[in-house]
Protein backbone atom coordinates (compact mmCIF):
# COMPACT_ATOMS: atom_id res chain seq x y z
CA UNK A 1 0.00 0.00 0.00
CA UNK A 2 1.39 3.39 -0.97
CA UNK A 3 1.10 6.07 1.65
CA UNK A 4 -0.43 9.36 0.55
CA UNK A 5 -0.69 12.77 2.18
CA UNK A 6 -4.05 11.64 3.49
CA UNK A 7 -2.50 8.82 5.53
CA UNK A 8 -1.55 9.35 9.15
CA UNK A 9 0.72 6.56 10.35
CA UNK A 10 0.10 5.86 14.04
CA UNK A 11 2.27 2.90 15.03
CA UNK A 12 3.34 -0.60 14.15
CA UNK A 13 1.21 -3.63 15.04
CA UNK A 14 3.98 -4.87 17.34
CA UNK A 15 4.01 -1.61 19.33
CA UNK A 16 0.89 -2.77 21.18
CA UNK A 17 0.41 -5.97 23.13
CA UNK A 18 -2.92 -7.79 23.10
CA UNK A 19 -5.45 -5.76 25.13
CA UNK A 20 -3.37 -2.59 24.98
CA UNK A 21 -4.60 0.83 23.93
CA UNK A 22 -2.64 3.83 22.71
CA UNK A 23 -3.74 7.40 22.14
CA UNK A 24 -2.72 9.74 19.32
CA UNK A 25 -2.88 13.38 18.25
CA UNK A 26 -2.61 14.78 21.77
CA UNK A 27 -3.80 18.33 22.44
CA UNK A 28 -2.10 20.85 24.70
CA UNK A 29 -4.04 19.57 27.72
CA UNK A 30 -2.43 16.15 27.20
CA UNK A 31 -5.59 14.54 25.81
CA UNK A 32 -5.73 12.38 22.69
CA UNK A 33 -8.01 12.96 19.73
CA UNK A 34 -8.32 9.22 19.18
CA UNK A 35 -7.02 5.90 20.43
CA UNK A 36 -6.50 2.46 18.99
CA UNK A 37 -7.10 -0.83 20.76
CA UNK A 38 -5.51 -4.18 19.91
CA UNK A 39 -8.08 -6.83 20.70
CA UNK A 40 -8.09 -10.44 19.48
CA UNK A 41 -5.16 -9.39 17.28
CA UNK A 42 -7.31 -6.84 15.42
CA UNK A 43 -6.90 -3.06 15.54
CA UNK A 44 -9.81 -0.70 16.16
CA UNK A 45 -9.80 3.10 16.31
CA UNK A 46 -12.14 5.26 18.39
CA UNK A 47 -12.50 8.96 19.11
CA UNK A 48 -11.48 9.87 22.65
CA UNK A 49 -14.98 11.13 23.40
CA UNK A 50 -17.37 9.25 25.66
CA UNK A 51 -20.96 9.66 24.42
CA UNK A 52 -22.22 10.35 27.98
CA UNK A 53 -21.31 14.03 27.58
CA UNK A 54 -19.78 16.10 24.77
CA UNK A 55 -16.15 15.19 24.14
CA UNK A 56 -15.55 13.68 27.59
CA UNK A 57 -12.00 12.26 27.64
CA UNK A 58 -11.96 8.57 28.49
CA UNK A 59 -8.53 7.48 29.74
CA UNK A 60 -7.52 7.72 33.40
CA UNK A 61 -3.87 8.13 32.45
CA UNK A 62 -2.20 8.70 29.09
CA UNK A 63 -2.96 5.67 26.87
CA UNK A 64 -4.97 3.90 29.63
CA UNK A 65 -8.35 3.29 27.97
CA UNK A 66 -9.01 -0.33 28.97
CA UNK A 67 -10.68 -1.63 32.09
CA UNK A 68 -8.39 -3.42 34.55
CA UNK A 69 -9.32 -6.84 33.16
CA UNK A 70 -8.41 -5.67 29.63
CA UNK A 71 -11.70 -6.96 28.29
CA UNK A 72 -13.49 -3.68 27.54
CA UNK A 73 -12.68 -0.16 26.54
CA UNK A 74 -13.70 1.97 29.54
CA UNK A 75 -14.59 5.58 30.12
CA UNK A 76 -12.83 6.44 33.35
CA UNK A 77 -15.25 9.24 34.13
CA UNK A 78 -17.94 6.89 35.46
CA UNK A 79 -16.72 3.42 34.49
CA UNK A 80 -18.77 2.94 31.30
CA UNK A 81 -17.69 -0.20 29.43
CA UNK A 82 -17.59 -0.59 25.64
CA UNK A 83 -17.02 -3.58 23.38
CA UNK A 84 -13.54 -3.06 21.89
CA UNK A 85 -14.60 -4.10 18.37
CA UNK A 86 -18.07 -2.57 18.03
CA UNK A 87 -17.72 0.43 20.38
CA UNK A 88 -21.11 -0.41 21.90
CA UNK A 89 -21.60 0.68 25.53
CA UNK A 90 -22.72 -2.32 27.56
CA UNK A 91 -22.57 -0.72 31.04
CA UNK A 92 -22.64 2.83 32.32
CA UNK A 93 -24.40 6.14 31.78
CA UNK A 94 -24.30 5.87 27.96
CA UNK A 95 -25.70 2.33 27.87
CA UNK A 96 -26.63 1.38 24.29
CA UNK A 97 -24.73 4.25 22.68
CA UNK A 98 -21.64 3.72 20.54
CA UNK A 99 -18.21 5.29 20.39
CA UNK A 100 -17.38 7.24 17.23
CA UNK A 101 -15.32 5.00 14.98
CA UNK A 102 -12.10 6.08 13.29
CA UNK A 103 -11.33 3.51 10.54
CA UNK A 104 -7.88 1.96 11.02
CA UNK A 105 -5.80 0.44 8.23
CA UNK A 106 -2.93 -2.02 8.62
CA UNK A 107 -0.60 -2.37 5.61
CA UNK A 108 1.55 -5.29 4.47
CA UNK A 109 4.48 -4.34 6.72
CA UNK A 110 2.27 -3.89 9.77
CA UNK A 111 2.01 -0.10 9.86
CA UNK A 112 -1.24 1.08 11.49
CA UNK A 113 -2.71 4.22 9.96
CA UNK A 114 -5.84 6.34 9.67
CA UNK A 115 -6.99 8.77 7.02
CA UNK A 116 -6.78 12.49 7.70
CA UNK A 117 -10.17 12.93 6.06
CA UNK A 118 -11.68 10.63 8.70
CA UNK A 119 -10.74 12.89 11.60
CA UNK A 120 -11.30 16.35 10.13
Amino acid at each position, binding site marked *: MMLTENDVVLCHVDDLKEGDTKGFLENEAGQDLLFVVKFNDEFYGWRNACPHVNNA*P*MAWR*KDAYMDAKKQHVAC*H*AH*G*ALFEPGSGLCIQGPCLGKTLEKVPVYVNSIGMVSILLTDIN
Partner: protein
Amino acid sequence: MKIVGLETIIFGVEDVASCATFLTDYGLFPVNVTETGGRFEALDGTAVVLAHASDKSIPASIGNGCMMRKTVMGVADTATIQAITEELSKDREVRQLADGSIESTDDSGFVIGFQVTTRKELNLAGEISNVPGSPFQRPVNHRAVQLEAGPIRPRTLSHIVYFVPDPVKAEAFYVERLGFRCTDRFEGAGPFLQPAGTLDHHTHFLIGAPPFMQGVEHFTFHFGGPTEVMQNGYQFIEKGYQAFWGPGRHIMGSNWFWYFNSPFACHIEMDADMDLHDQNWSPRAFPMGADNSQAFLLRYRSKWSPGKDTPHNGDYE
Protein backbone atom coordinates in the same frame (compact mmCIF):
# COMPACT_ATOMS: atom_id res chain seq x y z
CA MET B 1 -26.15 13.71 65.62
CA LYS B 2 -22.60 14.94 65.59
CA ILE B 3 -21.37 13.46 62.30
CA VAL B 4 -18.25 15.48 61.52
CA GLY B 5 -17.69 14.33 57.93
CA LEU B 6 -16.21 11.59 55.80
CA GLU B 7 -13.61 9.39 57.51
CA THR B 8 -12.73 6.81 54.85
CA ILE B 9 -14.02 5.68 51.47
CA ILE B 10 -13.36 2.02 50.66
CA PHE B 11 -12.89 0.81 47.08
CA GLY B 12 -12.59 -2.73 45.75
CA VAL B 13 -10.41 -2.71 42.62
CA GLU B 14 -8.87 -5.22 40.20
CA ASP B 15 -5.58 -3.41 39.70
CA VAL B 16 -4.41 -2.44 43.18
CA ALA B 17 -0.95 -1.34 42.03
CA SER B 18 -2.20 1.17 39.43
CA CYS B 19 -4.79 2.57 41.84
CA ALA B 20 -2.10 2.90 44.52
CA THR B 21 0.13 4.85 42.15
CA PHE B 22 -2.79 7.08 41.19
CA LEU B 23 -3.66 7.96 44.80
CA THR B 24 -0.02 8.53 45.71
CA ASP B 25 0.46 10.82 42.72
CA TYR B 26 -2.70 12.69 43.80
CA GLY B 27 -0.80 13.51 46.99
CA LEU B 28 -2.07 11.02 49.57
CA PHE B 29 0.32 9.23 51.96
CA PRO B 30 0.43 5.43 51.48
CA VAL B 31 0.08 3.73 54.89
CA ASN B 32 0.57 -0.03 55.31
CA VAL B 33 0.12 -0.57 51.59
CA THR B 34 0.79 -4.02 50.12
CA GLU B 35 -0.10 -5.65 46.81
CA THR B 36 -3.53 -6.43 48.29
CA GLY B 37 -4.37 -2.84 49.27
CA GLY B 38 -3.96 -0.38 52.10
CA ARG B 39 -4.70 3.15 53.28
CA PHE B 40 -3.98 6.42 51.50
CA GLU B 41 -4.18 9.24 54.01
CA ALA B 42 -4.61 12.97 53.89
CA LEU B 43 -2.76 15.17 56.38
CA ASP B 44 -5.48 14.69 59.02
CA GLY B 45 -5.59 10.88 58.64
CA THR B 46 -8.88 10.68 56.70
CA ALA B 47 -8.30 8.26 53.87
CA VAL B 48 -9.16 6.24 50.83
CA VAL B 49 -8.82 2.51 51.53
CA LEU B 50 -8.05 0.09 48.70
CA ALA B 51 -8.73 -3.62 48.67
CA HIS B 52 -8.73 -6.16 45.87
CA ALA B 53 -12.15 -6.58 44.25
CA SER B 54 -12.25 -10.22 45.41
CA ASP B 55 -11.55 -9.34 49.07
CA LYS B 56 -14.38 -10.82 51.13
CA SER B 57 -13.62 -8.58 54.12
CA ILE B 58 -15.16 -5.55 52.40
CA PRO B 59 -18.86 -5.20 51.52
CA ALA B 60 -20.02 -6.53 48.14
CA SER B 61 -20.36 -4.22 45.13
CA ILE B 62 -23.78 -2.70 44.51
CA GLY B 63 -23.26 -3.60 40.82
CA ASN B 64 -23.17 -1.32 37.75
CA GLY B 65 -19.38 -1.54 37.90
CA CYS B 66 -19.35 0.63 41.05
CA MET B 67 -16.02 0.10 42.83
CA MET B 68 -16.94 2.12 45.93
CA ARG B 69 -17.85 -0.45 48.57
CA LYS B 70 -18.38 1.61 51.71
CA THR B 71 -18.46 5.21 52.93
CA VAL B 72 -17.39 5.62 56.55
CA MET B 73 -18.40 8.77 58.38
CA GLY B 74 -16.57 10.09 61.42
CA VAL B 75 -18.60 11.06 64.48
CA ALA B 76 -17.69 13.13 67.53
CA ASP B 77 -18.17 10.55 70.29
CA THR B 78 -19.47 7.13 71.31
CA ALA B 79 -22.80 8.71 72.29
CA THR B 80 -23.33 9.53 68.61
CA ILE B 81 -22.48 5.95 67.64
CA GLN B 82 -25.08 4.81 70.16
CA ALA B 83 -27.68 7.28 68.90
CA ILE B 84 -27.17 6.22 65.26
CA THR B 85 -27.34 2.56 66.26
CA GLU B 86 -30.67 3.11 68.03
CA GLU B 87 -32.10 5.14 65.18
CA LEU B 88 -31.12 2.84 62.32
CA SER B 89 -31.95 -0.34 64.25
CA LYS B 90 -35.62 0.66 64.04
CA ASP B 91 -35.86 -0.61 60.48
CA ARG B 92 -32.55 -2.17 59.38
CA GLU B 93 -29.62 -4.23 60.51
CA VAL B 94 -26.80 -2.37 62.24
CA ARG B 95 -23.64 -4.44 62.53
CA GLN B 96 -21.11 -3.84 65.31
CA LEU B 97 -17.60 -4.33 63.90
CA ALA B 98 -14.53 -5.44 65.84
CA ASP B 99 -12.91 -2.00 65.51
CA GLY B 100 -15.77 -0.37 67.44
CA SER B 101 -17.44 1.06 64.35
CA ILE B 102 -20.95 0.27 63.12
CA GLU B 103 -22.08 -0.65 59.63
CA SER B 104 -25.44 -0.43 57.93
CA THR B 105 -27.05 0.52 54.62
CA ASP B 106 -28.61 3.79 53.46
CA ASP B 107 -31.93 3.97 51.62
CA SER B 108 -30.20 3.82 48.23
CA GLY B 109 -28.40 0.58 49.09
CA PHE B 110 -24.94 2.07 49.73
CA VAL B 111 -23.09 0.52 52.66
CA ILE B 112 -22.31 3.15 55.27
CA GLY B 113 -20.19 3.00 58.40
CA PHE B 114 -19.73 5.22 61.44
CA GLN B 115 -16.74 5.44 63.75
CA VAL B 116 -15.53 7.87 66.37
CA THR B 117 -13.33 10.11 64.30
CA THR B 118 -9.58 9.64 64.58
CA ARG B 119 -8.75 12.64 62.43
CA LYS B 120 -5.77 14.65 63.61
CA GLU B 121 -6.28 18.32 64.32
CA LEU B 122 -4.37 20.36 61.77
CA ASN B 123 -2.69 23.61 62.68
CA LEU B 124 -1.48 24.71 59.25
CA ALA B 125 -2.33 28.06 57.76
CA GLY B 126 -4.10 27.90 54.44
CA GLU B 127 -3.45 30.13 51.50
CA ILE B 128 -3.30 33.80 52.50
CA SER B 129 -3.40 36.53 49.86
CA ASN B 130 -1.64 39.86 50.16
CA VAL B 131 -4.54 42.22 49.62
CA PRO B 132 -4.13 46.01 49.99
CA GLY B 133 -6.11 47.14 53.00
CA SER B 134 -6.81 43.65 54.34
CA PRO B 135 -5.90 42.90 57.97
CA PHE B 136 -4.82 39.40 56.89
CA GLN B 137 -1.55 39.33 54.97
CA ARG B 138 1.24 36.82 54.42
CA PRO B 139 4.26 37.52 56.60
CA VAL B 140 6.87 39.68 54.91
CA ASN B 141 9.32 37.68 52.76
CA HIS B 142 7.03 34.63 52.67
CA ARG B 143 6.58 33.57 49.06
CA ALA B 144 3.16 32.49 47.81
CA VAL B 145 4.73 30.26 45.17
CA GLN B 146 7.29 27.73 46.37
CA LEU B 147 7.82 25.26 43.57
CA GLU B 148 10.70 23.59 45.44
CA ALA B 149 8.56 22.77 48.48
CA GLY B 150 7.93 19.05 47.85
CA PRO B 151 4.64 17.25 47.21
CA ILE B 152 1.35 19.03 47.88
CA ARG B 153 -0.76 17.09 50.36
CA PRO B 154 -4.56 16.91 50.60
CA ARG B 155 -5.77 18.11 54.00
CA THR B 156 -8.91 16.10 54.62
CA LEU B 157 -11.63 14.09 52.90
CA SER B 158 -14.12 16.63 51.63
CA HIS B 159 -17.19 15.12 49.99
CA ILE B 160 -18.68 12.30 47.97
CA VAL B 161 -21.31 12.56 45.26
CA TYR B 162 -23.69 9.67 44.68
CA PHE B 163 -25.89 8.84 41.70
CA VAL B 164 -29.11 7.66 43.36
CA PRO B 165 -32.26 6.25 41.76
CA ASP B 166 -34.63 8.09 44.12
CA PRO B 167 -33.11 11.39 45.30
CA VAL B 168 -36.12 12.32 47.45
CA LYS B 169 -35.96 9.06 49.37
CA ALA B 170 -32.15 9.24 49.54
CA GLU B 171 -32.24 12.77 50.93
CA ALA B 172 -34.92 11.92 53.48
CA PHE B 173 -32.70 9.19 54.93
CA TYR B 174 -29.77 11.52 55.53
CA VAL B 175 -31.93 14.41 56.77
CA GLU B 176 -34.54 12.64 58.85
CA ARG B 177 -32.54 9.70 60.15
CA LEU B 178 -29.02 11.13 60.45
CA GLY B 179 -29.64 14.82 61.06
CA PHE B 180 -28.11 16.24 57.86
CA ARG B 181 -29.29 19.63 56.50
CA CYS B 182 -29.78 20.65 52.89
CA THR B 183 -27.56 23.71 52.29
CA ASP B 184 -28.37 24.23 48.58
CA ARG B 185 -30.14 22.32 45.85
CA PHE B 186 -29.92 21.68 42.14
CA GLU B 187 -33.53 21.46 41.01
CA GLY B 188 -34.24 18.21 39.27
CA ALA B 189 -30.92 16.73 40.41
CA GLY B 190 -30.61 16.74 44.17
CA PRO B 191 -29.39 18.32 47.38
CA PHE B 192 -26.08 19.34 48.87
CA LEU B 193 -26.07 17.87 52.38
CA GLN B 194 -24.23 18.91 55.52
CA PRO B 195 -24.11 16.75 58.65
CA ALA B 196 -24.58 18.40 62.05
CA GLY B 197 -20.94 18.14 63.15
CA THR B 198 -19.35 20.37 60.50
CA LEU B 199 -19.91 23.76 58.90
CA ASP B 200 -18.66 22.64 55.45
CA HIS B 201 -21.17 23.50 52.71
CA HIS B 202 -21.49 19.79 51.91
CA THR B 203 -20.01 16.40 52.63
CA HIS B 204 -22.56 14.67 50.40
CA PHE B 205 -24.27 15.66 47.15
CA LEU B 206 -26.96 13.46 45.61
CA ILE B 207 -27.79 13.32 41.90
CA GLY B 208 -30.91 11.52 40.72
CA ALA B 209 -30.10 9.02 37.96
CA PRO B 210 -31.54 5.82 36.45
CA PRO B 211 -30.95 2.66 38.52
CA PHE B 212 -28.37 1.36 36.01
CA MET B 213 -26.21 4.37 36.84
CA GLN B 214 -26.32 4.09 40.62
CA GLY B 215 -22.83 4.67 41.93
CA VAL B 216 -20.41 7.49 42.56
CA GLU B 217 -19.97 10.64 40.43
CA HIS B 218 -16.90 11.83 42.31
CA PHE B 219 -15.12 12.18 45.62
CA THR B 220 -12.56 14.74 46.71
CA PHE B 221 -10.20 16.04 49.33
CA HIS B 222 -9.80 19.64 50.50
CA PHE B 223 -6.48 21.29 49.66
CA GLY B 224 -4.86 24.33 51.29
CA GLY B 225 -6.05 26.87 48.76
CA PRO B 226 -6.54 27.60 45.08
CA THR B 227 -2.81 27.70 44.39
CA GLU B 228 -2.42 24.16 45.73
CA VAL B 229 -5.30 22.96 43.55
CA MET B 230 -3.79 24.58 40.46
CA GLN B 231 -0.25 23.44 41.16
CA ASN B 232 -1.18 19.91 42.18
CA GLY B 233 -3.58 19.56 39.23
CA TYR B 234 -0.96 20.81 36.83
CA GLN B 235 1.60 18.33 38.19
CA PHE B 236 -1.01 15.56 37.96
CA ILE B 237 -1.51 16.32 34.25
CA GLU B 238 2.26 16.37 33.74
CA LYS B 239 2.28 12.77 35.01
CA GLY B 240 -0.22 11.81 32.30
CA TYR B 241 -3.49 11.96 34.24
CA GLN B 242 -6.55 13.18 32.39
CA ALA B 243 -8.52 16.24 33.48
CA PHE B 244 -12.25 16.36 32.86
CA TRP B 245 -13.38 19.79 34.12
CA GLY B 246 -11.53 22.71 35.60
CA PRO B 247 -9.78 24.40 37.16
CA GLY B 248 -12.62 26.65 38.08
CA ARG B 249 -14.76 27.80 40.97
CA HIS B 250 -18.20 26.52 41.86
CA ILE B 251 -21.10 28.77 42.75
CA MET B 252 -22.78 26.57 45.36
CA GLY B 253 -20.18 26.04 48.08
CA SER B 254 -17.77 28.43 46.30
CA ASN B 255 -15.11 25.73 46.26
CA TRP B 256 -12.34 25.77 43.68
CA PHE B 257 -12.49 22.59 41.64
CA TRP B 258 -10.53 20.48 39.22
CA TYR B 259 -11.97 17.12 38.18
CA PHE B 260 -10.00 14.18 36.80
CA ASN B 261 -10.79 10.74 35.47
CA SER B 262 -9.77 7.90 37.75
CA PRO B 263 -9.42 4.10 37.79
CA PHE B 264 -12.29 3.98 40.36
CA ALA B 265 -15.20 4.23 37.88
CA CYS B 266 -15.83 7.79 39.03
CA HIS B 267 -14.19 11.19 38.90
CA ILE B 268 -11.83 12.45 41.55
CA GLU B 269 -11.68 16.14 42.37
CA MET B 270 -9.18 18.46 44.02
CA ASP B 271 -11.02 21.20 45.90
CA ALA B 272 -10.28 24.18 48.15
CA ASP B 273 -11.92 27.03 50.03
CA MET B 274 -15.46 25.76 50.46
CA ASP B 275 -18.01 28.02 52.16
CA LEU B 276 -19.00 27.36 55.76
CA HIS B 277 -22.64 27.61 56.78
CA ASP B 278 -24.61 27.33 60.01
CA GLN B 279 -28.31 27.29 60.87
CA ASN B 280 -28.65 30.94 59.84
CA TRP B 281 -28.04 29.97 56.21
CA SER B 282 -31.05 29.69 53.88
CA PRO B 283 -30.67 27.04 51.17
CA ARG B 284 -30.83 28.21 47.57
CA ALA B 285 -32.21 26.29 44.60
CA PHE B 286 -30.84 26.55 41.07
CA PRO B 287 -31.74 24.71 37.88
CA MET B 288 -29.11 22.06 37.08
CA GLY B 289 -26.68 23.20 34.41
CA ALA B 290 -23.16 24.36 33.72
CA ASP B 291 -24.11 28.04 34.05
CA ASN B 292 -25.11 27.46 37.64
CA SER B 293 -22.12 25.25 38.41
CA GLN B 294 -19.11 27.33 37.53
CA ALA B 295 -18.40 30.94 38.42
CA PHE B 296 -15.50 30.74 35.99
CA LEU B 297 -13.33 28.19 34.26
CA LEU B 298 -9.65 28.60 33.51
CA ARG B 299 -7.79 27.46 30.45
CA TYR B 300 -4.21 26.34 30.20
CA ARG B 301 -1.96 28.04 27.65
CA SER B 302 1.31 26.38 26.70
CA LYS B 303 2.81 29.57 25.25
CA TRP B 304 1.87 32.90 26.69
CA SER B 305 4.14 35.49 25.11
CA PRO B 306 5.82 36.20 21.80
CA GLY B 307 9.60 35.96 22.01
CA LYS B 308 12.77 35.23 20.13
CA ASP B 309 11.19 32.31 18.24
CA THR B 310 8.14 34.28 17.13
CA PRO B 311 7.53 33.92 13.38
CA HIS B 312 7.04 36.90 11.06
CA ASN B 313 3.26 36.54 11.21
CA GLY B 314 3.34 37.00 14.99
CA ASP B 315 1.72 33.66 15.89
CA TYR B 316 2.79 32.34 19.24
CA GLU B 317 0.13 29.82 20.14
